[in-house]
């Protein structure tokens, strides 16, 4: 049963520290999404990649956030420096886009707490 995996599941860090979240998409999927979930804003799209190339990162604060796909099996989301307002659950999702429609499969999320 193929799944999206994310590490770490929980992260507590102090303000100003660098945070790196990792995602392993389902093997063979060509599209990866990063979402952030907070009580206040709900689910927000941060960025997404197709075939490892960034297609849209307009939802991401550029000054402190960066997203990359070093290879097809790994996506990373980095925050440097972290701030308390970054506290949220960060979800990665992957999908196989071959035509006009597809499904997104979500990972379990990384719960980030910045103190």
């Amino acid at each position: 049963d193929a799944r999206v995996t994310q590490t770490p599941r929980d992260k507590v860090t102090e303000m100003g520290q660098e945070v790196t979240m990792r995602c392993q998409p389902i093997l063979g999927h060509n599209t990866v999404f990063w979402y952030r979930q907070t009580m206040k804003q709900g689910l927000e799209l941060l960025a997404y990649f197709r075939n490892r190339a960034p297609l849209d990162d307009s939802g991401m604060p550029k000054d402190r956030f960066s997203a990359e796909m070093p290879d097809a099996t790994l996506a990373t989301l980095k925050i440097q420096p972290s701030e308390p307002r970054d506290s949220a659950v960060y979800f990665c999702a992957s999908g196989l886009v071959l035509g006009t429609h597809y499904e997104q499969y979500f990972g379990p999320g990384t719960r980030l707490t910045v103190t």
Partner: protein
Amino acid sequence: AQSVAQPEDQVKVAEGNPLTVKCTYSVSGNPYLFWYVQYPNRGLQFLLKYITGDNLVKGSYGFEAEFNKSQTSFHLKKPSALVSDSALYFCAVRPDTGRRALTFGSGTRLQVQP
């Protein structure tokens, strides 16, 4: 730009009764519509989708949704609710062309009472 409205923060139903979770959308072009469910401390799980064809879509765990183009709605339904259906439900939309990422609603917490 597309948007999704889930007008109810919470829906409460008794076990065995039918349930409806409402969703309306706005999108340019034809909509692709989705429902996801989130259990505590878990990621979102896909329930069902409407792409084209029959307006009544059947999905996982006995859920179904009805696409109504004139009312721009995609309400989630189940004929007989289970306590285990209690969770957070998200409706999502994207257009059939252009930006492929989903726009999610704010979520509706479903509580099924024994």
